[in-house]
């Protein structure tokens, strides 16, 4: 038994010894690949740890408040502080995930929609009127696939040739996470795509 253990531990030691030398004995390109520091992963790890700690703190706070171990005033203050920190962490996490920075996209899109909303209210008193006017104008942009320029029918959801969703022609600059915008408001159809998404 001890002989088997001995052989296993010697093999393990030698394998680990080779691993120490490995980063320095390979080609220059492979050496560089070792140096590719995944900064995002590092950031995510730090943020996730902080988030877990904050969630635990919030749970403890809740318990302490329920058992009168902390005053109402302190509870509210700590809770607000923890929640603010948690939101900030989650925003940063969201920003890192896939590097899409969609939070800014949403903010920008909202600003522009608000601006266009104001513009439409000033220019056309009712959205329905605007919509009918657009339809009447028969702008061809909306009826052509944004990907392959195949002509589309009014009620097409996807391009019959390449399968690109019709909506993507309108929101091609938006990030993937766009539920807040998808049914944002009926004014979508009243303006040109460029006015909506910027």
């Amino acid at each position, binding site marked *: 038994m*001890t002989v088997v253990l001995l052989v296993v531990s010697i093999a393990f030691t030698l394998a680990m010894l080779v691993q120490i030398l490995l980063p320095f004995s390979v080609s220059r390109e492979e050496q560089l690949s*070792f140096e590719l520091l995944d900064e995002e992963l590092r950031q995510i790890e730090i943020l996730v740890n902080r988030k877990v700690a904050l969630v635990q703190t919030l749970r403890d706070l809740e318990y302490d408040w329920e058992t009168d171990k902390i005053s109402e005033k302190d509870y509210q203050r700590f809770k607000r502080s923890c929640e603010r920190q948690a939101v900030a962490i989650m925003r940063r996490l969201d920003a890192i995930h896939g590097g899409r920075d969609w939070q800014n996209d949403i903010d920008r899109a909202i600003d522009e929609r608000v601006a266009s909303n104001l513009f439409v209210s000033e220019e056309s008193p009712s959205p329905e009127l605007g919509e009918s006017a657009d339809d009447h104008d028969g702008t061809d942009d909306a009826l052509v696939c944004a990907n392959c320029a195949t002509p589309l029918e009014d009620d097409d959801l996807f391009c019959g040739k390449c399968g690109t969703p019709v909506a993507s022609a309108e929101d091609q600059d938006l990030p993937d996470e766009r539920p807040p915008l998808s049914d944002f408001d009926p004014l979508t159809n009243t303006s040109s795509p460029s006015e909506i998404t910027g």
Partner: protein
Amino acid sequence: MSWLGSLAIYIALYVAIVGIALGAVAAITQSRRFLHAARFATYTVFGSITVASVVLVHAFLTHDFSIKYVAGFSDHTMPTFYLLGAFWGGQAGSLLFWIWKVVLFTAICVYVNRRSYQDFMPWVMSVCMTVTAALLLILVFGSNPFEGYQLIDDPTVGQGLNPLLQTPKMILHPPALLTGMASMTIPFAFAIAALLSGNLSNTWVKAARTWILIPWLFLTVGNILGGMWAYEELGWGGYWAWDPVENASFLPWLTATALIHSLLIQERRGMLKRWNVGLMIATFLLTLFGTYITRSGLIESVHSFAQSEIGPYFLTLLITFAVSSIALFIWRWKDLKADQRLDSPVSREAAFIFNNWMFLSMTAVVLFGTLWPRIREALTGSEIAMGPQWFNRWMIPMGLLLLLMMGVGTIIAWRKANWKNFQRNFVIPIAASIVLTPLSLVAYWFGRGQHLGVIPDEVQALYAITAILLCYFVGATIVQEFYRGMSARRRAHDESWTESFVRLCLKQKRRYGGYIVHLGIVFAFLAFAGNAMKIEKDISLKLGESVTIGDYTLTYNGLHDQHYRERIMYTATMPVERNGRHLFNMNPGRAVYHTTQEMPISEIDIRSTPMEDLYVALVNFDPSGETAAFKVFVGPFTWFFWFGGVILILGTLICLWPTRESIDSLRPGSSGLGRAAVFGMLTALTFSPIVIWTAESHTDWGSAARYSLISQAESEALPPPLPTSLEIGEHYAIDDEGV
């Protein structure tokens, strides 16, 4: 094979030194190549030390007496169980075992955190490798376990393991303590990494809180097993005698306990940053200090068998680590400023700070009591002894204060307590303790106490009653916390009481695990309170004579002896009766080993129940077996000390209970099997002391009679030089045997 062991140690030392440099370069340059290399350097050192350890175990199992260490601590007659124990039975082997534990925990820490604590891990690896390299230097130059004889000098027989160490508990006690001390390196490394990297946020606190529970758990198990060994083997009649080496392992336990509490305050309130770093450094240094005083022979102790010539090496190591850690601490002093200040002296933070001061005061008292006799002797030349009475005079009141703070700290409000908090949280525990204490004291006195015939003195009685009162108070606070938590869960989730209890422990492991640890301490204090009613008698009995102690009547029915290759076992037979009714037989004994005839070993017999222990030691006997002297103790509630220990370990395990994420960090997708394995190992560890205790207390395995159960083959293989047993009344001239 010894050459392979030596080679493995040299390789480990070399790679450890290289690992220090690799880790430092990785930390400074943030180079992934160096990080990778440093990580695998730790694994290589672990592999190398494992090779050396396996070589030594192999040498023991194959009786390779060409190695001095093997010849010095084993012989042909020792069973495999004790041969394995002989690995850490001496100085060099225990140091190798310590190093193996350091590198094992380092490798685990590095593997588990291979994707986390990126700022810290290079420094953590460097620090751990520094500790390893320093210990390896001592091993190589101070006491190499693979040192051999010249070929011609090889002995054909070994000297055997010290008979005192040949008990099952001694096979578990040293490795548990050594593991506790060795694994203290990991949280220390995180603290030093924080100082070196300048990242003094709460990140190191989070890591340290997890990693310090492991050494704390092992130190606890080690101390409890050590107490059991002393109780059963040394004939003190107690489990703690303030022996210097007991104190040496108790000191880091005290500071680690304080640290576990103060880290919580830093995590929650951003206070005590300096305190925590200082306490962490002190705890690590105390583990080295404990090793130094045990092995240097500085202090006289029951552990004198562990003494060797490597004291100066450990002193150098201790001074080097102390100076460098403290220098680093001072360098970062300004950056360790607390984020917040204490709002009110009547708050949970203040209670925790007070409890920390109490732990520190106890540490100071124990340290002083351990060292002062030696310092005074060096200064004045006169010898003094600081016995248990001196320690108890200080430690009992401080312990009671600590017990009080344990209850208060559980229920007092954060930041500032108010009247509403007092009404809601304090009234029930105070009422419970005031009502239940007199009731239970009266019930015990009339139910059992008066039959023991002991009237404790005023001070003892005061301490015992206060302890019981506080036990009820703390117990009630814990029950109240659990009740409220479970009620809240039942309201929110419609769960049964059992379900809500389990989920409560799993959802808030640290909080409720901690409460269970406190409950274990409460049981231990109950055992301390029982000492007020303890009976201790030295008796000498003639053959057939009886004596009544408490309400137990013990009759001496003679000795018989059994001969084994390595020892002669003398066993007394003592039927025990109460009010004329036979209860059980006790078999205290005394073993005389052929190799150490001048040092006979007591084989104490103990009958342990929750109410009290009956403890009988055979101290001496007439060569004819006509008369024998015994030491008899009746110790109320001693059982609760061991029971409290198990509860305490159980609570720690709940705190350490692995989360899904931590199991995933071992290997993705291994949740079920990994959890089961971790849980299985930890449960076995938790219950091992009480299982051993119960088995030894209620079977013949705990007394000298166990030798008759050991395979007869061994004794049958011997030529029959003497009758194998003596009938009652048969005279036996022990002098003829040269004993």
